[in-house]
């Protein structure tokens, strides 16, 4: 067996040489012959009736091919959502606009400059209306965003009531009763988990090419979900799935924002069909900021009740989540992902209520973590405040309330069962890695010198690996685009006649390195070197069914399917080898690039021989079909539940409010690890985005609904220079949910880090009396909190 292919080996990412040298092929790199370019007119007003929309001058602009408005495309109907609660986004504005950035008209022109000139030439009059931006005002229904909806509150998620079929018990009375106990310590914090812009390095981009001769589409799109896009196009244009080929080539980051199918993709396809030529659109950075989904956007109050000696008696969250103006893919369902981990790593009753409200802003949906960073943030911030209130070490208070290793699978009040865990194990590892006792000492020394140094602890459990079939029943699938109602994983493993391997998977990377991880899985199973394994993804023609990459699901669901397919191929190969070697298949052992009979290393068939034999009927067993291939699907019985605990050491300059991260330690447990370098890379990026939320990022709409952060000038992102060196380590608690015992690591860093930083800063300033600061902890807020506490 080639050493480079062993699962758990630190294989370098195979995709990097091409990407680093600039040979990656992204959608915007492609320019088909006769391609026309699209630019959209987008609303500069948050809420208005459109009283005039005159495109005649635009149509006369040099280089313009066509200008389309709502009436031209309304026959296609709105693009459906998977969880269709709320108002669907019209393809183009239907007489009104409901947020800044809403598409009103589409211009198609010979080049993108001409397209933009024509957009500027469209004459629009708006009858401006008062927008609804503030979440509390939205909830009050004082002004309704959409007349046709009963209320701005689209849905209210409750811990016990999210799915009637489960018949869960309402634990609110239990939590309330705990608060009345004589020995109860009740700590509440009102907090904001601010709205964020996902900011993928590669903006969204799509090229649709309608072939009138064959009546078929080829669509290249920078998407996380090519099959979903294919399904949506098939459905809306009345085509067979075989007549819609969607290709997601290299995708330069997604973080959930490319998990939606977007109107823009449908409109570009429409234009291509209408004009009979390829049509291309690449969003501008401003569109990426204001017309691609946002994440987070919650306000709420978290309350923890416990005893004076640190025993948790209950947790309550009352929050409002911002859905934006229109419902897209999973919009209203995002808080539900947080609900499932509302109790974190702790055994306690929970009362959890999140109102989903519509506002005159861009739609929110899945952004790295999707509901889970919000849920964990509220819980872990208030735990920290409680620990401080009772004067207990924040690690000790957590450990005291963890689920214990012998309690797994641990069924929570939300009905789901945590699969496996050793939460205290991760804490012990963290203490050792960080030198916790020394850090506490250092903090005291620094404080004695008048410095504001703080230690922040943040634990998390997350839910990923979507998913179990039950999720389809509450809308988590692409069923509304005509795809099967499941989140199955799938994988095809094919050994070619020259003993190379083609692996086709139903999930595609947006930077995660599937080319490497999948080659390790298959290479390990077959004893074929990673270099001889080609991993194909992101092309609906290659694979009949794929769910996509999101929710940290690829490895534990599609990876597991590929693992099973590999096993089937090996079993068949063993029968062929047995035939060649005139032995029993049960005695065949694969080793060193070939097979031999157990105990007789000389009786050996190389892979090249086995592979060739598989495709020659006369050299393979009579009762075997020709070829050496397996296609397997995998449907997990449960989600997976990774966990970990992080620690940040920070120092605050009390003169300026400037926060400096001095050190950062993370212990994450994602079960078995296939590719350690990729796992650490995921944790690195995840923590960077968590730190981004904690310190820098904030998508801001003013009271009039203007977007104040429409470019990267006003939306600061963390860069390498802003981040400390991260000390990453892992514990390994396998899951039995899938055959590889793997969980998922794509979102863990993000879910574990934002509250860790805030806890650290509050710890640093707690001697001054600071109890909470809302993110982002920009210097102005930190300084203002210091002023307020000292006055």
């Amino acid at each position: 067996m080639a050493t480079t292919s062993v699962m758990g080996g630190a294989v370098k990412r195979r995709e990097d040489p091409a990407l680093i040298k600039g040979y990656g092929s992204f959608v915007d790199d492609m320019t088909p012959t006769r391609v026309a370019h699209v630019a959209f007119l987008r609303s500069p007003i948050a809420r208005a009736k459109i009283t005039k929309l005159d495109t005649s001058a635009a149509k006369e602009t040099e280089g313009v091919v066509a200008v389309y408005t709502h009436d031209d495309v309304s026959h296609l109907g709105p693009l459906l959502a998977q969880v269709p609660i709320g108002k669907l986004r019209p393809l183009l504005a239907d007489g009104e606009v409901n947020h800044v950035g809403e598409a009103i008209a589409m211009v198609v022109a010979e080049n993108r400059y001409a397209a933009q000139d024509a957009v500027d030439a469209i004459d629009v009059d708006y009858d401006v209306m008062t927008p609804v931006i503030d979440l509390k005002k939205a909830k009050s229904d004082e002004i309704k965003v959409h007349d046709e909806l009963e209320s701005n509150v689209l849905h209210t998620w409750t811990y016990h009531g999210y799915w009637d079929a489960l018949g869960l018990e309402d634990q609110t009375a239990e939590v309330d009763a705990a608060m009345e106990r004589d020995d109860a310590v009740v700590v509440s914090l009102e907090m904001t988990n601010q709205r964020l812009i996902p900011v993928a390095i590669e903006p969204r981009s799509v090229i649709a090419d309608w072939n009138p001769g064959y009546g078929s589409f080829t669509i290249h799109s920078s998407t996380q979900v090519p099959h979903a896009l294919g399904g949506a196009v098939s459905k809306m244009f009345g085509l067979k799935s075989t007549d819609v080929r969607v290709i997601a080539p290299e995708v330069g980051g997604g973080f959930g924002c490319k998990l939606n199918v977007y109107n823009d993709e449908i409109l570009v396809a429409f234009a291509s069909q209408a004009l009979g030529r390829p049509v291309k659109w690449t969003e501008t950075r401003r569109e990426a900021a204001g017309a691609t989904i946002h994440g987070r956007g919650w306000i709420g109050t978290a309350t923890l009740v416990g005893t004076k000696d640190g025993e948790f008696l209950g947790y309550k969250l009352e929050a409002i989540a911002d859905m934006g103006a229109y419902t897209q893919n999973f919009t209203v369902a995002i808080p539900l992902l947080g609900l499932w981990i509302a109790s974190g790593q702790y055994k306690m009753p929970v009362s959890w209520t999140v109102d989903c409200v519509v506002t005159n802003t861009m739609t929110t949906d899945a952004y790295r973590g999707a509901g889970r960073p919000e849920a964990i943030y509220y819980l872990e911030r208030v735990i920290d405040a409680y620990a401080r209130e009772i004067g207990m070490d924040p690690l000790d208070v957590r450990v005291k309330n963890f689920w214990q290793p012998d309690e797994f699978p641990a069924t929570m009040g939300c009905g789901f069962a945590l699969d496996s865990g050793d939460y205290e194990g991760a804490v012990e590892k963290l203490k050792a890695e960080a030198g916790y006792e020394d850090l506490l000492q250092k903090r005291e020394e620094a404080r004695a010198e008048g410095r504001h140094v703080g230690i922040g602890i943040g634990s998390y459990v997350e839910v990923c690996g979507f998913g179990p079939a039950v999720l389809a029943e509450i809308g988590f699938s692409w069923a509304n685009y005509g795809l099967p109602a499941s989140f199955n994983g799938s994988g095809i493993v094919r050994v070619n006649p020259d003993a190379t391997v083609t692996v086709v998977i139903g999930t595609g990377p947006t930077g995660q390195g599937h080319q490497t991880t999948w080659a390790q899985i298959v290479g390990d199973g077959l004893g074929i070197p990673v270099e001889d394994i080609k991993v194909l993804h992101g092309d609906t023609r290659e694979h009949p069914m794929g769910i996509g990459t999101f929710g940290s699901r690829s490895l534990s669901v599609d990876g597991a399917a590929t693992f099973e397919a590999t096993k089937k191929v090996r079993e068949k190969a063993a029968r062929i080898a047995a035939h060649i070697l005139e032995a029993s298949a049960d005695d065949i052992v694969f080793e060193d690039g070939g097979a031999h009979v157990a105990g007789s290393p000389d009786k050996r068939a190389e892979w090249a021989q086995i592979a060739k034999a598989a495709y020659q009927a006369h050299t393979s067993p009579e009762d075997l079909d020709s070829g050496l291939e397996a296609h397997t699907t995998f449907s997990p019985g449960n989600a997976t539940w990774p966990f970990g605990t992080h620690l940040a050491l920070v120092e605050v300059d009390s003169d300026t409010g400037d926060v400096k991260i001095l050190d950062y330690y993370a212990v994450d447990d994602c079960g078995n690890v296939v590719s350690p370098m990729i796992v650490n890379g995921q944790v690195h990026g995840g923590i960077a985005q968590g730190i981004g939320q904690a310190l820098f990022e904030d998508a801001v709409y003013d009271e009039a609904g203007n977007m104040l952060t429409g470019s990267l000038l006003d939306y600061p992102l963390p860069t390498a220079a802003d981040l400390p060196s991260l000390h990453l380590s892992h514990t390994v608690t396998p899951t039995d949910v899938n055959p590889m015992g793997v969980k998922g690591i794509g979102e863990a860093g993000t879910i574990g880090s934002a509250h860790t930083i805030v806890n650290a800063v509050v710890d640093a300033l707690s001697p001054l009396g600071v109890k909470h600061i809302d993110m982002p902890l920009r210097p102005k807020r930190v300084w203002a909190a210091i002023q307020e506490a000292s006055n």
Partner: protein
Amino acid sequence: MYPREFDYVAPSSLDEALEALGDDSKVMAGGMSLLPLMKMRLFSPAVVVDIGRIGGLDTIEESNGDIVIGALVRHATTATSPLVAQVATGLATAASLTGDVQVRNRGTTCGSLAHADVAADQPAAALALGATMVAQSSEGTREIAASDFFVDALTSALQPNEILTSIRVPKHQAGEGSAYDKLGRRGGRSDYAIAGAAAWVKMEGGSVADARVALTGVGTKASLANAVADAVIGTDGSEQAVKDAAARATEDVTIIEDLYGTEEYKTHLAKVYAARALSQAIANAS
């Protein structure tokens, strides 16, 4: 992010460049500030005159007690020049804290001054160090004191037919020192200044004989904080003396709020950074 149509001229001599300038033209050196504005269609000149191919503008030279920094000297060069670090310290520091590596490799010291962004690093340094701007037009050469150069947000004293061909900065003499410091939008010194200050001092016999302090990021333009300089001159430059003087930092400036700071906070920061820059300049002078 697609600009409106414009004419692009890339002359190889200064004379040709000056000739190409008109009422609706814009000079481009590194393009780090101009191009984003054009791409967002916030600014659409009819003609862009790219001076990048004109020889002889990319040098740092010494001349009559000054150092002369040409129009095409990149931030990276200003930041890493041992000469600038020694004799115009604050300007070198400002260059080193501008943007990121890519921006510093493209953007120019003179270009940043001509752009006159309210939160840029170079203007405060130029003011504190007493730089002189050398502007050329087809009619001749004009020298403009830094204190007269910054007119308003994104507005300098340059006329549409002028190119800022160089700046002259008096070299620090014995007993003189300068410094620049800021709080960036991403914390630390990263990104545009929420507030920043540059200071220049001349120390004689253990006391401050002369000083200039300038602020950036807090108002509608970079500006001298003369009250601070007046207050520190004649003192021993001690921590307390600097702090007392810096308390007057905002007497000469109208504070503008933005996403990164309230008026109260920026007023406070102006004092903090005036003090930090002054203290560092005094330390550098000895």
